């Protein structure tokens, strides 16, 4: 497999300016004109500013940012719904940004599916017909399209609702249809633009579980957009944080929480319950050659809060951390766990209060 068809998505130096003469301003923007200046002087919107991002195949990449930060714009560049002002979006060595309309149609039919915030189901079609939409566009036979549709309706837990119309279903159920419709396309890339944001909190967590469960087996390249940090930390193998169209940090959830790249990200992750996000392996100390190893063992991917609870109830102060293969990752003690669970910024301000 050469670098050209790694099946990763490579976004390179991507700029998007909204407005009728966007191309005229790309040079000024590259030379340092800010979003505010562009808006005040020329009435154009700088939506994306020099985005570089590798989206690895088979993993969930979450793009997170506040409303208006450019998330929807960015994700729509991946399937060509929005064309860039400058830059490249590479997949399998091809640049999505320069595809002809016919190539783009083919790409969307075969390689990339999408789930929308407001579901965007076809209201005049039943659940079954909605799920069969992608295959029917590809020219698959009607019976094969129906077979695919039934399979995925079943997988998202909607068996029995095939003949309902979207309007007869709750929001959560409608988005299951949206998910089934996207999965029935059998595409390797799945784009989800705030797919769960319109749902009630409990339903949202349900949907996240369904997604994670399906992903275990499907290993699709998922790009998940959200403005919700908890959702990002729960789903993202990789998390990218966007602010006013500029990328702030790209990294694992530990990177984001433990090593925020700047004060914006640090503020963002301040309120996070770190004990529920961090895995013990991220704070384990490697064992030295002649260390004596504790008997109590914990799994490397257990979350800090779970480990802390187990250790306190068992009355042990130190534990051995092993990964799934049984290899020793290191040791961990309660003070280190507590230290990692407390946000350094909060600790600093508390220290000031005490003084």
């Amino acid at each position, binding site marked *: 497999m050469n670098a050209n068809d790694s099946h990763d998505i490579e976004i390179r130096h991507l700029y998007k300016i909204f407005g009728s003469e966007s191309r005229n301003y790309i040079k000024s923007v590259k030379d340092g004109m800010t979003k505010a200046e562009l808006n005040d002087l020329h009435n154009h919107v700088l939506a994306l500013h020099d985005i570089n991002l590798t989206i690895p195949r088979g993993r969930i990449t979450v793009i997170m940012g506040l409303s208006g930060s450019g998330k929807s714009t960015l994700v729509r560049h991946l399937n060509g719904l929005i064309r860039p002002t400058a830059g490249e979006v590479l997949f399998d060595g091809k640049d999505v940004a320069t595809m002809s309309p016919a190539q783009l149609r083919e790409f969307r039919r075969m390689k990339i599916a999408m789930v929308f915030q407001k579901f965007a189901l076809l*209201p005049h079609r039943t659940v079954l017909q909605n799920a069969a939409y992608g295959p029917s566009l590809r020219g698959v036979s009607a019976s094969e399209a129906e077979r695919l549709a039934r399979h995925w309706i079943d997988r998202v837990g909607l068996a029995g609702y095939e003949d309902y*119309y979207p309007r007869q279903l709750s929001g959560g159920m409608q988005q299951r249809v949206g998910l089934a419709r996207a999965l029935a396309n059998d595409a390797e890339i799945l784009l989800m633009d705030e797919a769960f944001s319109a749902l009630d909190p409990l339903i949202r967590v349900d949907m996240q579980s369904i997604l994670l469960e399906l992903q275990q087996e499907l290993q699709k390249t998922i790009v998940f957009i959200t403005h919700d940090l908890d959702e990002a930390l729960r789903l993202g193998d990789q998390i990218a944080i966007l602010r006013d169209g500029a990328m702030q940090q790209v990294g694992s959830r530990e990177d984001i929480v433990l090593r925020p790249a700047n004060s914006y990200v640090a503020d963002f992750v301040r309120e996070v319950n770190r004990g529920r996000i961090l895995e013990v392996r991220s704070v384990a100390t490697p064992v030295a050659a002649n260390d004596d190893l504790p008997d109590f063992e914990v799994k490397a991917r257990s979350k800090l809060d779970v480990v802390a609870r187990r250790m306190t109830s068992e009355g042990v102060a130190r534990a051995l951390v092993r990964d799934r293969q049984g290899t020793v990752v290191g040791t961990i003690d309660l003070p280190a766990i507590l230290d990692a669970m407390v946000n350094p910024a909060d600790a600093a301000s508390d220290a000031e209060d005490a003084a």
Partner: protein
Amino acid sequence: MDLISFPEMSRGSLRAMRQTIDGAFRDFTRAWGETLEAIFSPLQSLLTFLENLLIHSPWILVLAAISLGIWLLSRSWRIVVGAVVALVAIGYFGMWEDTMRTIAMVAVCTLIAVVVGIPIGILMAQSKRTNAVVTPVLDMMQTMPSFVYLIPVVMIFGLGKVPGVIAVVIYAIPPVIRLTNLGIRQVAPDVLEAADAFGSSDWQKLRDVQLPLALPTIMAGVNQTIMMSLAMVVVASMIGVRGLGQPVLQAINQQYFTMGVMNGLAIVAIAIIMDRTTQAYGHRLQKHSEVRK
């Protein structure tokens, strides 16, 4: 200076101008009249065929066929029963044949309006330019007194069914066009984006999303077109279209009150039947928007 009387073109030049235009049009009619008649002759055959079918078939069969059609569209027994009662009364009072002629006429006019109007509406919805060109034409078609465009139509085609159909279609086609355009423009942008995201071609988008979602609105346009065609039958009878309009016209000229009222009521009855049927059909098209299963 005289500010009371408007500075007019001289009478002589005005007459000359009218004569030139009339003359040019007359030449056009002479040169192209037969070609145009030939083009529209299938229309004449269609209308004659339908008329003969309705008039010369056993009345009970015609009644059964009409009832079946109404039921298939409306799925409402009330409308079917109402239609049967009205048609039986119409037949009993001696207006069966004229009514059949009028129904045939309205059916053909509506068919033409739909076949011509829906594609025009689609084009208007896709392109701002077409929209800008067609909209004023539609405004003119709807406000121009119909007698005015009867003149050129009669000059080209003479008296008879074809000019009648053309005049009725000109008068009645705007709602289909306007509401097709409106219906397609009203389709939610997020559903269209989904269609794009799944790789729809323009044609697939039209067929799977835009037309089905616009259909209830389009049906409202068809309903209006039918009503307007019926409203034109009296005017059309002035240029030789036979049907319920003719006795009305005759009744006006001879002051036959009862005859006028009876034929007028027959027109009203047909209008109500067609209106309720098409509306019920329009409602059925929106079944998916009901919340209960």
